[in-house]
């Protein structure tokens, strides 16, 4: 039974983490494509529209992979987490069904029009279809966040028959206070990913001295959107989300921060390695009293350490939780530095000529993906040992009838299939970037 639990968790973690590499780019890029098309519509400059069309091509590949890797997520609630689904389906099924009805229909219908219909629709309606694809992807994000927020911080439910839960307040479910900040934090994270991909591609064109007009637009758009979103990521969204965790999941906060003992004026740890045997942090580098200030806005405030909670309510993988949280925060800080420097260079009109800066931007694109994944790993590991926080423990949620052997079979299948998809995806995106916006525009005219 232990084996089966581990395999169910591994399969869900792997398929979810892999899947989310794509929607974060979809949601970020959708906004940037809308912006590029809007600029083109307002200024009449065709180059912004061709730029948007180039990103539309990459968007299409990315969207396709996002869709096909997303279908397993909905299925796995039933296939791998049947007891959880029976228990909570009456509540979170609402938001999952709403995602399908309100977001996916919108997204998929207008994606077809956006990709195939530019000539038929004309520029204004084509802009509208791009906007509706963006809207669909962001609505979809909301319903998924509300679903996750309910697992992090259950609201609007009541006890139903046979030990299951039922919905008692639809408004409470949709307006879960946890969901609002989690949503804004998550979406700004997606915009950071989109911005860095756009800027990185632009930097490549400038460094390679090709498609330079597009390169400049991409660097400018990416750096400015990247700066705005990175700042919003830290404050107010990240800050507020951290306070949510401190308030509702204090044990998770202690584990994230590597705080083993309750302290007045708790320090903020920058670097250090949790030692679970000795229950302490090795080689710590910290800012005194900073954690107390960030959490409670008072330097001397008491922050509860892990020792304040019974060990059976501690998150089950504290070192990984600690590292993923620190990776997320560390990378977020670096994003602000890169985009702030870029904005300053843009303002001084030196950004396109500074090869050192362009190299940094070009090589930076993987890091938002890592930061977003680390953020989700933090959220999900912080929720442990609960599947539904405070209500249902993770081992009680699996499909009891699905054996470890069958789960390993499908996990291996997913590993193999997703490896192939990853290779194909990289191949096709590199091919599109290699062809470049100018050639795609040329292709259209012929």
């Amino acid at each position, binding site marked *: 039974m232990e084996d089966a639990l581990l395999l169910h968790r591994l399969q869900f973690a792997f398929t979810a983490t892999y899947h989310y590499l794509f929607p974060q780019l979809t949601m970020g890029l959708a906004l940037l494509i809308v912006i590029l098309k809007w600029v083109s519509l307002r200024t009449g400059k065709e180059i912004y529209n061709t730029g948007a069309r180039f990103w539309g091509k990459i968007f299409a590949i990315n969207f396709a992979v996002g869709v096909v890797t997303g279908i397993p997520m909905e299925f796995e609630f039933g296939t791998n987490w049947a007891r959880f*689904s029976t228990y909570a*389906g009456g509540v979170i099924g*609402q938001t999952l069904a*709403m995602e399908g009805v309100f977001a*996916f229909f919108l997204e998929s219908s207008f994606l*077809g029009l956006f990709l195939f219909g530019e000539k038929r629709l004309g520029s204004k309606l084509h802009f509208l279809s791009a906007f509706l694809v963006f809207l669909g992807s962001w609505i979809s994000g909301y319903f998924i966040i509300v679903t996750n927020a309910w697992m992090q911080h259950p609201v609007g439910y009541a006890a139903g028959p046979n030990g299951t839960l039922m919905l*008692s307040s639809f408004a409470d479910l949709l307006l879960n206070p946890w969901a609002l900040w989690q949503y804004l934090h998550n979406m700004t994270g997606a915009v950071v990913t989109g911005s860095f991909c756009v800027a990185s591609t632009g930097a490549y064109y400038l460094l390679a001295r090709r498609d330079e007009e597009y390169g400049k637009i991409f660097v400018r758009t990416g750096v400015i959107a990247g700066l705005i979103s990175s700042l919003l990521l830290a404050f107010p969204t990240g800050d507020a989300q951290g306070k949510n965790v401190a308030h509702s999941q204090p044990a998770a906060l202690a584990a994230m921060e590597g705080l083993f003992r309750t302290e007045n004026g708790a320090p903020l740890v920058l670097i250090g390695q949790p030692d679970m045997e000795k229950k302490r942090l090795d080689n710590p580098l910290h800012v005194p009293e900073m954690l107390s200030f960030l959490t409670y806005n008072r330097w001397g405030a008491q922050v509860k350490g892990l020792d304040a909670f019974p060990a059976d309510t501690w998150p089950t993988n504290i070192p990984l939780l600690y590292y993923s949280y620190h990776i997320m925060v560390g990378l977020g800080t670096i994003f602000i530095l890169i985009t702030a420097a870029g904005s300053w260079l843009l303002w001084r009109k030196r950004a396109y000529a500074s090869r050192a800066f362009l190299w940094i931007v070009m090589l930076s694109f993987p890091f938002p993906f890592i930061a977003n994944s680390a953020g989700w790993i933090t959220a999900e590991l912080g929720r442990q040992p609960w599947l539904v926080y405070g209500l249902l423990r993770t081992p009680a949620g699996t499909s009891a009838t699905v054996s470890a052997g069958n789960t390993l079979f499908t996990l291996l299948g997913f590993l193999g299939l997703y490896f192939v998809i990853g290779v194909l995806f990289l191949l096709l995106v590199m091919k599109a970037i290699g062809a470049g916006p100018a050639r795609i525009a040329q292709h259209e005219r012929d």
Partner: protein
Amino acid sequence: MEILWFCIVAFMLCMYVILDGFDLGAGVLHIAVAKDNDERRLVLGAIGPFWDGNEVWLLAAGGTLYFAFPLLYASSFSGFYLPLMIVLWLLILRGLGIELRHQVDHPMWRSFWDATFSFGSTLLSVFLGAALGNVVRGVPLRQDGYFFEPLWTSFTVQPDAGILDWFTVVMGLVGLSTLAVHGGNYLAMKTSGEVQRRARAGARTWSWGVLVTSIGAAVSAFAIRPGLAANYSEHPWGYVFPLIGAAGLVGVFYFNRKSDDVKAFLSSTAFIAGMLSSTAFGLFPYVLPASTEERFGLTVYNTATQSYGLGVGIVWWTVGILIALGYFTYLFRSFRGKVTVRKEGY
């Protein structure tokens, strides 16, 4: 309220089979009706803007099933673990086939994705039929409402049968031939020239398959689950569903011969809707009967969530589905008429 949600989920699944059915069917016939690159681009162009939206009906139906009947969703998805995972892999490969084929301009690349698309569509059509077969035959439910079925055991219909036994294989063939006809009708409607001619011929050939397999499946279904007839004898108005299906099948033969492709497509739609609703009507109130003991069977009553959730759901569902039908009307109108291969690709 439970009955209403039963009808809603049945309606959504039926929409899924009708809509994704035509692009699955197009995939089944893909290699047979389209011989060269331009013809294959024509087939993919005919389904290109639609297939993704069609597949959303599966996700939306799944989500609706999840919230309205949580135990049914949990029990069937974990019990059908292996076939569902294989369905997922096939959906992934097939979707990639449609979307990635035109990305690289090389005949080997295209051949590979043509084969993948066709293979995936064919197996999925069989699986859809076999899935329905499993629901009709019943599954080895335990007292707690859960079960697990291997892919196959001895291929005989018995309490510990696997997903595939002779009955569900026959149902799988019903699924395959029905969707092939449906896809052929769709392609004949949306294309012209050689592809149209071959699509019509394909639909004609496969409709004999539909006739033979569905008669076989219907006879065996009543033999395996005699209870299916009970609802019909109690409520004779239910006979309208099989009559719609039968009329659809007659229409398929008739309009195919007259080369009236739109009416042929509407006929295969009526056949699918009629047959699925007949099955649902016969099974009701069961949604997943037990092959172990009758009383372990899952019904709309013992799997539904509470009335507050169902009541809230009916409000947003109605609003949402009306909007979605609006999108579909707009989308199908925007891409109405015959597809042609443009130089740019589809």
